[in-house]
Every structure is written in C-alpha cells, then in structure tokens.
C-alpha cells in the first residue's frame, strides 16, 4: 500500500516522502467549484528540482494506480535534501483565466463548456452534452462561469488520467463501506447545523430590448477592449471599427468615435420550496444562477431541497480505502452505531502507507439523477380541450396566458402650414410672392396593446387527471373614432383557464415571457404602430426638405414626388411705358408624406407654357388656360398686370393596419399614422419700372386646392390566449412542436 509521485519523469517512492497530504472536495449542491490540492515533501539529491515551471503536472499513484493529476504551483527547499511541492487540481488554472461570458439561446452544454475551458481539453458526458443552455454568463473567471453551467446541469467536474477535464454525473452507487474499525476514535463527531426551512430559486430571462446605451465616446490610440457592466446587443460604431464583440465586450480599433448598443431586458421570477419545518425560519436564496430558466427550476428545486434536507454531517478521520469526494459511502455512525449512507463532500488526507483522511459526509444525501424532473416536453393548448395528464407523469407546470389586448388606433397626418407672404417694393420695383413652408407632420402611431397576464403554477398530478383548458379570446384593435385627435384603445383579451387556475391571478412580464424550449417570446407588449411620414416641404431659404420614408423590414414607403425647380416662368415682358417690365416665377411643389402601406401623393406639377409677352398680346401662347394649375398669366393689352398662382403639395398617404397578432398573449399592434400633407410651393411676380412711372400690378394668387394629411389606421387585434403545459418524460420520443 504505497504512494508514489512522478514528477518530471522521476518517480519518488513512499520511502522518499516524509510528508504528504491531499485535499479533495466536491460541492454537493453544485454551486461552487473548489480547488483540490496535493502537497508532499520528498528527499532528493537533485537541486534542479526547484527550477520548475508553474503548472507542470505531477501524478499521484497509489499501489500503481493513478489517484490524481495535479499541477505544481510552488516548490520550497526545506532541508539539505528536502523539498516541499505544492500542487493543485486543474481548476486552479481555470480560476486564473477570464471568460468573457455572453448571452446564450439554446446553446448546447458541450459548446459552452468547451468554450469556457479552452484551451484545456474537456469532454462532456452524453447525459449533458446536448442539453440546451439559455441565459447569461458575466465576465468572470472560467471557474465561476463553469460552476454556473454545472449548477444548471447538476453535473460534476472530474480530471481524467490524461489531465483533461470531464463533466459527468456523480455516481449514485455505494463506492465504499466504512466500518467502525476504520474510523479513528480521536476526532469523530456529528455536526448538526441550522435547518434550512425554505429554498428560493430565481429563474432568469434575457430579452433583447430597444433601449440604447452609450458604451464608448472619445478617442483611443490603440486597439482597446471595452467591457460592459451589463449585456448589450446590436452594437453600432461610428468613427471606429468593432474588431470583435460579444454581449459583454467589444474590441474596438484605434480612432475617435462612439459605440452604442441596446440593453437586454432581464426578467426574473422566484420559485420556492419548503424544505422542512423548524422553530426558526432559515431561507437559502439562490439568485445568482443566471442559466436557470423555467424549464429546470423545478428539477433544481428538487435537488436543492434534497441537499438542504441532508445537512447533518459525520466528520471523522478514517482509514481511507478508495473513496473520493462526491462518492456515496456507507459508514458506521459514531454514536448510534447504525450503518448509514451518505456522500463525501470533502476529504483531507494525510498520506502514508495507511491514509488517514478527515472526511465530511452528508448523512442521507445521495447525488441526484441530473436529468430527473427537467421538463423536456411541452404542449401548447390554443383551443378549448381537456388536457389529460400523460402516463408516468406526476408533476406538471402550467403557464396560463391571457389573450393580448388590441392595439391603439393611430392619428391622421397633419395639413401643411399655409404659405407666407414675401412682398417688397422700391421706387423702381414691386415684388409680391407666396412662399410655402414645411410639410405636414405625420400622424402619431398607436401604441401596441398590453400583453396578457401570465400565471405559472407547479402541480402535483396523477396520470389520467383531466384539466379542462380554455384559451382566452384576443382583444380587438382600437377603431378610429370621430375625434381624429384621439387614440382609441383596443379591448382587453379574455383570460385563459386551466382547470381551476386562471391567468387572472397572473402577472405581467414587461419584456414578455420566454418559452425556453423554443426560445420564442410570448405575452409581450404589442408592437407600436409606425408614425406617418412628414410631408416634403421648404425651409426658410425655400430649399426642399424631403419628407421621411417609412421602412418596415423589407418594405419601404416613400413621400410623394416633389417638383423643386422653376417649373414655370415667363420671360421678361416688353417694357411698357405705363407699366414697366414684368417677370414671374412659379417654383416647386412638395410631395405628401408616406404612411405604412402607401407612398405619399406627388405634389402638383405645373402646366408649363413658354413664350414672351413681346407684343403684349394677351392671346399669345403664354396665356394659361383657366384650368391650369400653377400658371402665370397676363392681363390686358398692353400688359399692365401679371400674376402667378401657387402650387399646392400632395396629399399624405393613408395608412393600413398591421395584421392581427398571432403570438399567444401578445398585445395587438398599434395603428399606423397617416402621412403629413406636402408643403406648398412658392410663386413670385416682380414689376420693374422707371422712376416716375406708375408701375403695373404684379399679383400672386393662392392655390386652387389644399392638400390633406393621410388617414391613420385602426389598431390591430391582440394575440390569442393559450396554455403551455410542461412535463418530463424519460423516453426518447419527440415533444410537441410549437407553432
């Protein structure tokens, strides 16, 4: 029964080891990953042993069988030939390295674990490899993030003989029997800590939100890694380049600029479990496990309940056999004399021919089946029916969702501001004009309908039990009323029921509720409608200000066409001794605003007739006809009056509503605003004359018509109600697919 240690190709026998110790630990609630260590003192004639490189491996064998591989952290010389080597498990290496975390949406456990442990090779037991992980990991040590993954899975981490890591389940079989004859009598005791009466576990959901957050603004002279305090998505860089990024960080190039992103909405829900009664309540709160979702919380509560139900510990030094931390053993109870079962949570061994190990054993605790109770089947009930509990199912989780409220109606687009006067005169000229202004504002969109309430209940059931299930009826979208300056809300959706349970007793999830098996979001607020586009118009210098386009996915709706050049003009007329010269210009007309579903109407196009008034002939081809728009006319022979008529803008587009919402519990989309009216164009007429001459009569006339804003749309209907029912099945059949 001898120990040997092999380091740098040299095997040191027991006889060369004066002191040796090994510490092995396994957190049985899976919440921590603690570092094991191994220390020993050897006699050696090789003084170069101190020239070590940190993390060099050493192998601890007992009777020729490898017990563990450790990695050297420190070597001390303690005598002429004595050296003490301190080594740790590979976890210590993971502790010193950082993992950048991220948001995970149904990523496989194998992928996430490999990413965390890299470059250390790791294998994942097939019981866990394809498990889907959803949630969030922060920037933290690799060890801490790996611990979160293992907690979520209920898995343990082992080191294989080749030094690689292995994620596996703790065995539920008894590994060793420890009779009284192997328990040292000097320090055996039984510890009875305070009883935990209740355990609270927090479920987490992360949903992409729309709130923008500034992540960087300024200059950097070299490539820089930015670390975020909370996860973001949809990064937008201006002036700099994002070289690499994740939810928690971005590597940006040198330069000056800004980086923005959008926040995630972090929603939590607490679930709790009574563990045992006690005179004084003691609650254990597990709220930092950000990979726990609705699917596993029940199963994890089962695990935590079992763990906290078995907190009495036998702590004794025993003559160790082959047991290790995490192993199930039977042991002679030091005081009752009965043989009891338990699991070793830690083991502190002094190495010799007989290993004396101080073991801490949780009495009555046995590692759990990691996949037991994890909900892996779901059915969506979207029509009234009787749900029958399947065979071998004794636990259900029902998520009962109220139908969504209809969306709010939208407003019409505005008319355009009327033209302004632009008149001036001198002793030799007189100018009159009408100048259009901006386009009309688009109509305000309606807000999306409120989501349905969500009630989540865990039920102890029996196979064959029936739950009559009635999904709620969707709320209707708000209808535009007679007062076009008011939004009209949609109606509420009705509640869904599952047996005697109703969504009426539920709560609202501001960011929606994530169905974890599919990753889809339900019971979220309806999308807001789209505000109508502003009509095109003119600025103070009569330059065109185009109206905005409406973009929704692949669909784009444009403002109406605008005519901006001097589309109609009359050349300078012949001087008339009574009236002087006349010049007239009709310029521009502006398109109406766009709206969801339609382009804006074009601005008026003038009828252009060109010619001169050289002969002061009122019947010449420059005389416009009465029905022409935006025309310039002359009056009387010889010309003593000239006038122009203002062009008007196009009408704003009328919006169409979004389709009714189909997602369970989601609010209906808001109505879409009508497009604003296009702005008026501009017209001017100038009369110049010699000093002392009485001028003619330049005049500008208003438009024949006035553009109007487009009509806003009604709100759309909300999503229907529904009930998601979860349960666990052991077989390999596929679950019901979700819509």
């Amino acid at each position, binding site marked *: 029964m*001898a120990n040997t240690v092999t380091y740098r190709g040299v095997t040191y026998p027991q006889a060369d080891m004066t002191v040796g110790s090994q510490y092995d630990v396994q957190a049985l609630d899976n919440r921590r990953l603690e570092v094991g260590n191994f220390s020993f003192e050897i006699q050696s004639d090789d003084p170069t042993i101190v020239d070590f490189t940190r993390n060099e491996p050493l192998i601890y064998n007992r009777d020729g069988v490898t017990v563990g591989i450790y990695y050297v952290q420190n070597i001390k010389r303690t005598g002429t030939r004595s050296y003490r080597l301190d080594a740790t498990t590979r976890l210590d290496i993971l502790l010193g390295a950082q993992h950048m975390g991220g948001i995970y949406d149904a990523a496989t456990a194998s992928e996430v674990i490999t990413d965390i442990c890299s470059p250390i090779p790791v294998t994942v037991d097939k019981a866990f490899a394809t498990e889907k992980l959803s949630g969030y990991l922060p920037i933290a040590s690799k060890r801490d993030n790996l611990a979160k993954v293992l907690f979520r899975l209920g898995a343990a981490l082992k080191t294989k003989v080749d030094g690689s890591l292995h994620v596996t389940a703790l065995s539920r079989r008894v590994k060793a029997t420890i009779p009284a004859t192997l328990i040292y009598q000097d320090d055996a005791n039984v510890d009875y800590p305070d009883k935990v009466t209740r355990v609270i576990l927090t479920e987490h959901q992360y949903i992409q939100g729309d709130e923008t957050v500034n992540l960087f603004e300024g200059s950097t002279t070299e490539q820089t890694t930015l670390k975020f305090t909370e996860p973001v998505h949809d990064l937008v860089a201006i002036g700099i380049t994002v070289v690499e990024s994740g939810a928690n960080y971005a590597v940006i190039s040198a330069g000056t600029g800004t980086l923005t992103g959008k926040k995630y909405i972090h929603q939590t829900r607490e679930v709790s479990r009574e563990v045992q009664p006690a005179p004084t309540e003691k609650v254990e709160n597990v709220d930092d496990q950000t990979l726990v979702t609705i699917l596993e919380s029940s199963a994890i509560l089962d695990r935590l309940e079992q763990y906290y139900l078995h907190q009495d510990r036998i702590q004794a030094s025993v003559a160790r056999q082959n047991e290790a931390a995490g192993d199930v053993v039977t042991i002679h109870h*030091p005081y009752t004399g009965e043989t009891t079962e338990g699991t070793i949570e830690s083991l502190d061994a002094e190495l*010799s021919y007989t290993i004396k190990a101080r073991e801490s054993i949780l009495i009555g605790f046995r590692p759990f089946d990691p996949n037991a109770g994890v909900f892996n089947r779901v059915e969506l009930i979207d029509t009234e029916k009787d749900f029958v509990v399947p065979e071998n199912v004794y636990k259900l989780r029902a998520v009962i969702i109220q139908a969504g409220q209809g969306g709010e109606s939208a407003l019409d687009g505005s008319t355009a501001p009327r033209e302004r006067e632009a008149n001036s005169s001198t002793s030799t000229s007189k100018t009159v004009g009408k100048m259009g202004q901006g386009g009309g504002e688009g109509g305000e969109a309606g807000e999306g309908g409120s989501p349905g309430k969500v009630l989540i209940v865990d039920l102890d059931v029996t196979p064959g039990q029936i739950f009559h299930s009635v999904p709620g009826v969707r709320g209707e979208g708000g209808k535009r009323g007679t007062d076009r300056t008011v939004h009209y809300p949609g109606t509420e959706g009705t509640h869904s029921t599952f047996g005697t349970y109703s969504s009426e007793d539920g709560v609202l999830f501001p960011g929606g509720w994530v169905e974890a098996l599919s990753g889809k979001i339900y019971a979220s607020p309806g999308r807001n409608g789209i505000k109508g586009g502003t009509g095109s118009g003119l600025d103070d210098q009569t330059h065109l200000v185009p109206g905005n386009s409406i973009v929704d996915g692949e669909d784009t709706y444009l403002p109406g066409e605008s005519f901006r050049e001097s589309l109609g003009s009359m050349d300078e007329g012949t001087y008339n001794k009574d009236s002087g010269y006349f010049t007239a210009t009709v310029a521009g007309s502006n398109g109406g605003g766009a709206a969801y579903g339609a382009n804006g109407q074009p601005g008026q196009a003038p009828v252009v007739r060109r010619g001169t008034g050289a002969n002061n002939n009122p019947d010449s081809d420059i005389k416009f006809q009465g029905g022409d728009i935006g025309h310039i006319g002359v009056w009387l022979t010889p010309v003593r009056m000239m006038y122009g008529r203002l062009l008007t803008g196009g009408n704003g587009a009328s919006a169409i509503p979004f389709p009714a919402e189909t997602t369970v519990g989601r609010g209906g989309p808001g109505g879409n605003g009508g497009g604003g009216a296009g702005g008026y164009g501009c017209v001017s007429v100038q009369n110049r004359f010699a000093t002392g001459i009485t001028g003619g009569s330049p005049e500008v006339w208003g438009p024949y018509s006035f553009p109007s804003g487009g009509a806003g749309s009604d709100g759309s209907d909300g999503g229907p109600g529904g009930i998601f029912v979860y349960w666990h099945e052991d077989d390999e059949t596929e679950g019901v697919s979700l819509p």
Partner: protein
Amino acid sequence: MGRTPIVMDGVTYHVGILFDPPLEESFRIEDGPNVGVSLAGTDIRDIVGTYYDHTLYVEQDPAYPQDYTAFYQAISAPVPSHTVVMPHNDGDITYSAKVLSGTREYHGRLSGRRIWKGLKIQLKATAPQRVPGGDDNG
C-alpha cells in the same frame, strides 16, 4: 577458528565478531504517523515496514591490531549512520544503521599495548528493510 571480519561503509575491518555472547538480531515493525485506535477499539496500523537491528560483540584480531582501533574510531564517529553488512538468515543483509551506543572494557597493558576487550555495539536500522507490498526477500 577464523574470525569473521566486519564490512562497514565499504571497508573490511579485520576484527572478530564474537559468538559467545552471541550476535543478536532483533526486528521491529514500525507504524507511521497514521497509527491509531478505531471506534471499535481495534488498532489501526500504519505499517511503515520491518526493521532488522543487530547487537554484537567485537574482539581484536591479533593479526590486525590496528584494524580494531580503526574500527572503533569509525563506529564511534559522529556521523548519522553507517552502511553495514550483517548476517541474516542464510546470507547477509546490508542496511543503513545508526549506532546508538557502544561499550568496551580496559584490561591493562600487555607488552606496552593497552588491552581492550568486550566491545559491544548496537546497530539500529534507519529505514525498513521490508515494506508493505514489497518483495519478501528480507
């Protein structure tokens, strides 16, 4: 009768091992630090191994009087241990021994030389000659 020399630290000393009183070989099975008593009252052994120790009497070989003095000087030297070869079973055993004590008697002068007799030395093995799980050729 020929005298049995002593080989120590690779040096052969022509002295004689007495067989009356006889050379004594003793053994001890030592425990390590993890020895203890169990809850059942039984021993928990931590056997490090078996040590063979020797107690012997040495006399001068008249043919090599100087070896006796040299051996005495060597065996009483302030060093941690010596490598000695001692009779064991039908052969010899070589081991590292620490000398715990030694005595001898002064018997006066003869022909100008001091007569020393009855040198008794105790040799104690510094390491087990047989270890648990080791070969059984000790």
